[in-house]
C-alpha cells in the first residue's frame, strides 16, 4: 500500500487546514495505510501548548491529536530550523516528535509515495 505523508506548514486559525489534515490522516490510518505527520514553518504553531481557541470562537483541534495514539501513529517530524527561527522548543509542543535538520526533514519526506501539504 502506498504510504502517505501529511505536512502542516501553516499557522492555526487562518483556515481549516489543520482540522482537514487530521481528518485526512486518520481516515487513511483507519484503513491501515502507513502515514506520518510532518510539521514545519508556521505549521509548528499548531502544536503550541495552552492555546485558547474559545477566545476567538474557534474549535479546539488540538484535542483531536489524542487520537494519534488510538491509531498508533508515531511517526511525527519537526523541522529544527523552523523551530529555532520561531523560538519554539520541541519539548514544549503538545505532541512528541523527532526534531530533524531541514535536510533530514526533506530526506524523510521524500520516502513517501504521496504527500499532502496544508
Amino acid at each position, binding site marked *: 500500500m502506498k504510504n502517505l505523508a501529511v505536512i502542516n506548514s501553516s499557522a492555526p486559525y487562518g483556515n481549516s487546514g489543520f482540522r482537514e489534515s487530521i*481528518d485526512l490522516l*486518520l*481516515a487513511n490510518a*483507519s*484503513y491501515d495505510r502507513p502515514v506520518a505527520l510532518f510539521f514545519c514553518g508556521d505549521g509548528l504553531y499548531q502544536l503550541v501548548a495552552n492555546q485558547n481557541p474559545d477566545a476567538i470562537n474557534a*474549535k*479546539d*483541534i488540538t*484535542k*483531536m491529536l*489524542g*487520537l494519534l495514539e*488510538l*491509531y498508533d501513529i508515531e511517526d511525527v517530524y519537526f523541522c529544527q530550523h523552523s523551530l529555532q527561527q520561531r523560538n519554539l522548543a520541541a519539548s514544549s509542543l503538545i505532541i512528541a516528535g523527532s526534531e530533524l535538520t531541514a535536510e533530514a526533514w526533506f530526506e524523510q519526506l521524500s520516502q513517501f509515495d504521496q504527500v499532502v501539504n496544508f
Partner: protein
Amino acid sequence: MSQTGISFNGVDYAVDKHDYLLNLDDWNIELAQHIASLEQITMTDDHWEVVNFIREFYIEFNTSPAVRMLVKAVGKKLGAEKGNSRYLYSLFPKGPAKQATRIAGLPKPAKCI
C-alpha cells in the same frame, strides 16, 4: 432528514439541521431515553455502554467519531468482541455513529453513514 425538533416534558430543545442537540449541557439520561425512542431504540445496558463511551470520547477528543473511528475506539476500550460493526449495528441498526451520537446529545459526525 427534515427537522422535526426534540420536545420532551414540555421543553423544546435547540437542535441543529439534522435534529441533533445543539447544547451538550442540555443532555441528561431521561432526554437520551426519549431521543432513543424517536430512533425506535429501547436502551439496554449495552446501548448505554456505547452511548456513555461516545460521550466520553467527544469530551476527550472534541470530535464525534464516524463509524470506522468508533469501531476502532470501542475495540480498544471495550474489547474486540464489541469493536466490530456487526455488534454496533445490532444495537443501532440505522448506523451506530449516527444514532449513538444523537442519543448521546453530540453533533452528527461529519460525512457519516
